[in-house]
């Protein structure tokens, strides 16, 4: 089978229907093919795999596929296609002052990622494009050549909605008139609400007055870290409770994803756990030995995905902590591993003679 055919076969497999053993076996074959592809097409990846270990070795399992640390997309240009094939450059927003990640897509990878994301989203939204309320400002779409992760996320989700209305002004005030108008037209039938978790909490829920909002027919898809919310002592349950109380919305799905692996979104299931789709998975690694840990043991999240052919991002060690909670539990008909994300790695305390040492990691 060609690489494309191998990847497409997984994209066409039942999204959450394969038992873990079968899923892992099929992923291993596809990821091995991707390793061969990137070794042939990306000199940097070839050098890394030659020096740091595996080289041409055939992986015995998903955990055996060589991974790259996610920070490498901030410091190095990692590309597996000719420059004139690059159609889109994605950048991570990051915190102010931080170097953003840069991810290079060709048409094939972008198309595959869009198709993958569609499979995940239509699983909960249905095949019809619903009217869409975006809890963000249209200003995030300003620069169409280099999207921030927020812009890319909003734009990506707009494919699954129709007649989008932005709920926030450029200064992130609630645009009550626009929202009321949207609800007057679409509020009585199913509609889609999308936004980053923090924006939904801080700029929608916390800003609502006594009148509240009637979003009971809405389905909320939200993403983004819980870190900022954890600082405000807001967890998943608090978020859901407040959402239901203030808006009547009960169909709420968090998802986990990153700019380095667009399309491989882990959507929340009925049990509140995140499910990698059939074409992606996680390996949880011990943060000190980096060896895979058993189900139930927290560690650093490695994300694998068969989608990227234009950059060597099929196995990425993230800077997030997480745990595999169940395997093949079958809740809501979903098989495979179910994951809980526990947050970012703690930051290192900076030591040493140089005050700027923290910045010294990236050359």
């Amino acid at each position, binding site marked *: 089978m060609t690489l494309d055919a191998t990847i497409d076969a997984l994209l066409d497999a039942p999204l959450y229907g394969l038992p873990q053993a079968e899923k892992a076996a099929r992923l291993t074959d596809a990821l091995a093919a991707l390793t061969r592809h990137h070794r042939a097409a990306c000199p*940097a990846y070839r*050098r*890394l795999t030659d*020096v*740091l*270990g595996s080289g041409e070795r055939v992986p015995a399992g998903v955990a055996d596929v060589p991974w*790259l*640390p996610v*920070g*490498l997309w901030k*410091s*190095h240009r990692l590309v597996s296609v000719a420059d004139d094939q690059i159609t889109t450059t994605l950048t991570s927003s990051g915190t102010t002052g931080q170097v953003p990640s840069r991810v290079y897509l060709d048409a094939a990878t972008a198309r595959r990622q869009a198709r993958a994301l569609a499979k995940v989203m239509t699983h909960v939204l249905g095949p019809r494009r619903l009217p869409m309320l975006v809890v963000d400002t249209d200003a995030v779409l300003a620069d169409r050549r280099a999207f921030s992760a927020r812009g890319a996320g909003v734009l990506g989700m707009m494919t699954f909605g129709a007649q989008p209305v932005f709920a926030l002004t450029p200064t992130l005030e609630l645009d009550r008139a626009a929202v009321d108008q949207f609800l007057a037209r679409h509020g009585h039938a199913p509609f889609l609400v999308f936004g980053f978790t923090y924006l939904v909490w801080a700029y929608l829920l916390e800003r609502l007055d006594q009148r509240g909002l009637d979003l009971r027919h809405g389905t909320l898809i939200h993403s983004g870290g819980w870190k900022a919310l954890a600082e405000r002592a807001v967890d998943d349950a608090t978020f859901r409770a407040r959402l239901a109380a203030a808006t009547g919305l009960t169909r709420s799905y968090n998802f986990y994803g990153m700019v380095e692996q667009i399309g491989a979104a882990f959507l929340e299931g009925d049990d509140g756990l995140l499910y990698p789709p059939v074409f992606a998975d996680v390996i949880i690694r011990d*943060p*000190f*030995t*980096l060896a895979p840990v058993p189900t139930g043991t927290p560690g*650093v999240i490695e994300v694998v995905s068969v989608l990227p052919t234009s950059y060597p991002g099929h196995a990425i*060690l993230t*800077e997030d902590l997480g745990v595999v909670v169940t395997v093949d539990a079958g809740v809501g008909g979903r098989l495979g591993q179910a994951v809980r994300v526990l947050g970012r*790695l*703690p*930051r*290192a*305390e*900076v*030591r*040493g*003679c*140089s*005050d*700027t*040492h923290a910045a*010294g*990691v*990236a*050359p």
Partner: protein
Amino acid sequence: MKVVCRVPARGTVELTELLAGLAAAPGGHPFADDVLELCSQFSQRLMADPVARVHPELMTLGYFMRKAELVRARRDHEAAVRHDVVQVPAGLVFHVPPGNVDTMFMYSWLLAVLAGNVNVVRLSSRSSPVVDHLCGILDELLARPLHADARARVAMIQYDHDDATTAALSARADLRVIWGGDATVAAIRRAPLPAHGRDLTFADRFSLVALGADAVVALDDAGLRALAEQLANDLFWFDQAACASPRLAVWIGAAAAAGPVRDRLWRAVVEVAAGRGHRPEMAVRMARELFVHQAVLDGPVVARSDFGTALTVLRVDRLDGLARVHPGGGVLFEAVAPSLASLDRWITRKDQTLTHFGLPRHELVELAQRLAGRGLDRLVPVGQALQMARYWDGYDLVDQFLRHVHVVA
């Protein structure tokens, strides 16, 4: 402009009043009895301090300040003074210690106060238990009547990053001491000194260890263990992030071509570290993974070996092209060189400390002479990389804090 004065503990004070008070302080002189007494009391307090048992860097500081050492330094100093020179303090010294080595401000102050100077020490605005503890002890000792003069000659202060305050202090400084590396030096230097004022600067540095391969091969288990203990001190204190922490190991001599001796030593080093309960922080360990990947893409790395979770050794097949970028936290470049002298082509101004084992003195002296000031300011035995000394970064620090008045009768 207001600052918080921690030593003496006076709370928030007006900067102009603080400076006026320091200007009125009685003049000191080098190695005065009362200052030696103050330092020795401080040292005794630290050496008996339960807090110092969990912070070994406090023990080291206490040892550095012990009376016998200070008396010896005074004797050396007096023996070297010419009869036509009167040594006097430099004047008002403004210290900017690094924000993330908690004990450094004390070394900076100590060397300056021994010379009799008036000292303003800028403490990090980020509070630290170790700094708070040291300030508390010093403040308590300064309250004793014997130390009234010393008390009048010091202000250890905190203020938020504020260029105006730094400028006001700099404008009054006879000598400004800037630690904290290139960026801090550049930032503080924007504030002008008086025309006669002088900067003592401590830039970003890189350090390495040179191992005589034949000498290591010849070690029995006990000898290897002893060497490993010294290397573990150098490598793991301050998470390998101090300017003098070795980041590159160079095996000198043909025997190093054999891999077993190298692995035997690094295994012994991590055994020592493990025995001491050393374990990298999770974030430091993960940062190492990123650095390893970056180093492979950017430099002449040919192989990686992991020794437990504490140490990753990256072998390079040449020194050319090895960037002096390093995150600390348990990663060591490893190279082989035919002779110590052959390092001279590679050494640059950025290189500070070469710790050594199994290499004869004449080769060390010869290397320093061959380099002729192009790099390396310290060549010290393994185990002493982080031992603060009077001679540092090419300076004689006691001398730097003095003025030399020529008196011909």
